[in-house]
C-alpha cells in the first residue's frame, strides 16, 4: 500500500461547516451556563461584600480564552472537537500525525485571519485542491475524514504524503 492510499481523504466544506456550527452551539451553551453560574455567584456575594460584578465585562474578558482553549485543547488532545467528532472529521498535522499545541494555537488564530476578508479563508476549502483553508495552511494542518477514509466519497485529488506544495 503506497503513501497516497494510506493518507485519509481530505474532509470537504459541508462536513467542516456543519462541524463548526455544532462547535458554535456547544460554545454558546457553555458560555450561557458560565454566565448563569456567575449571575448566581454575584447574587450570593453582593449582599455580603457589597461589591457588584460587571458580568458582561468579565465574560468579554474570558470569552477569547474559553474559545481558544476549547479548540486548541480538543485538537491537541483528541484531534477533533465535539462538532468534528460528530461529523467524523479530524485535524492532523501535514505529516498525518497529531497536532502540536503550538500548531493548534496558531490554527485558532488563523480562524480570525480566515474570517476577516468576508470568510474567504474558510471558503478557500472549496477551491483548494487539498481542501485546505487559510488557517490550515498557516498552521500546516489538514482536516481529514476520521473513519473509513477509503470508503468516503472524496475529491479526485490524492494528497501527497508530505502535504501539498506551498503548505
Amino acid at each position, binding site marked *: 500500500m503506497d503513501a497516497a492510499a494510506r493518507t485519509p481523504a481530505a474532509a470537504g*466544506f459541508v*462536513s467542516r461547516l456543519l462541524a463548526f456550527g455544532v462547535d458554535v452551539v456547544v460554545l454558546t451553551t457553555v458560555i450561557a451556563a458560565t454566565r448563569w453560574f456567575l449571575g448566581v455567584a454575584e447574587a450570593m456575594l453582593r449582599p455580603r461584600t457589597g461589591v457588584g460584578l460587571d458580568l458582561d465585562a468579565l465574560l468579554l474578558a474570558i470569552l477569547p480564552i474559553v474559545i481558544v482553549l476549547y479548540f486548541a485543547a480538543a485538537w491537541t488532545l483528541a484531534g477533533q472537537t465535539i462538532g468534528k467528532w460528530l461529523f467524523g472529521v479530524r485535524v492532523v498535522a501535514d505529516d498525518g500525525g497529531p497536532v502540536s499545541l503550538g500548531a493548534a494555537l496558531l490554527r485558532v488564530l488563523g480562524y480570525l485571519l480566515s474570517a476577516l476578508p468576508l470568510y474567504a479563508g474558510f471558503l478557500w476549502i*472549496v477551491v483548494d485542491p487539498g481542501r485546505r483553508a487559510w488557517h490550515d495552511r498557516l498552521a500546516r494542518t489538514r482536516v481529514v475524514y476520521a473513519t473509513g477514509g477509503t470508503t*468516503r466519497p472524496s*475529491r479526485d485529488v490524492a494528497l501527497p504524503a508530505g502535504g501539498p506544495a506551498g503548505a
Partner: protein
Amino acid sequence: MSKPSSGEPGDARLLLRFALGSAYLARRQLFGALRAHAPAAGADQPPAPSVEAPRLRATVRAARRSLAWLGQTWPFTVAARAAAERRAAVGRRVGDWRAFLGAEEEVGVPLARATLGHLVDEAIGTLGDSSSLHGVIEEQSANLGQDALDRLRTTTATADARLDALLRRLRRR
C-alpha cells in the same frame, strides 16, 4: 371414577387449582380477543336448508314408528331401564366432579392471578439482573447510535463530494 376428596389441599390439589385458575384467566383473555375481532352479525349467513322430497320424508317417518314399536317390547324395555340407571349413576359422579372442579376453579382464579403476577415480576427481575442481557441491550443501543452517526457522516461526506462536483462543472463552463 371415584368421588373427589375434600380437606387440606396438597401439592397436587394446589397444582390443580393453579391450572384451573390459569385456564380460566387464559379463557377470559382468549374470549375477550375473539369478541374484539369477531365479524359483525350477519356477515356469514348459513346456507338455506335444502327441500327434502316428500317420499323420503314418508320413509323416515315409517322407520321411526317401527323403531318406537320395537322399543316397547320386553327385552328392550329391560335393557333401556338398566342403561338409564347406569346413565344416572354416571351423571351423579360427573355432577360431583363438576361441582368439585367448579369450586376449585373459583379458589384457583385468585391463586393463579397472584402466582402469575409474582412469576412475571420474578422473571422480569431475573432478566433485569442478568448481566448478559444488560450487555446485549447496551450493545444494541450502541450499535443504533453508531449506525445513526455513520449515516450522518456518510450523508455529509456525500454532500462534500457533490459540492465539489458542482464547482468543477461551474469552473469548466
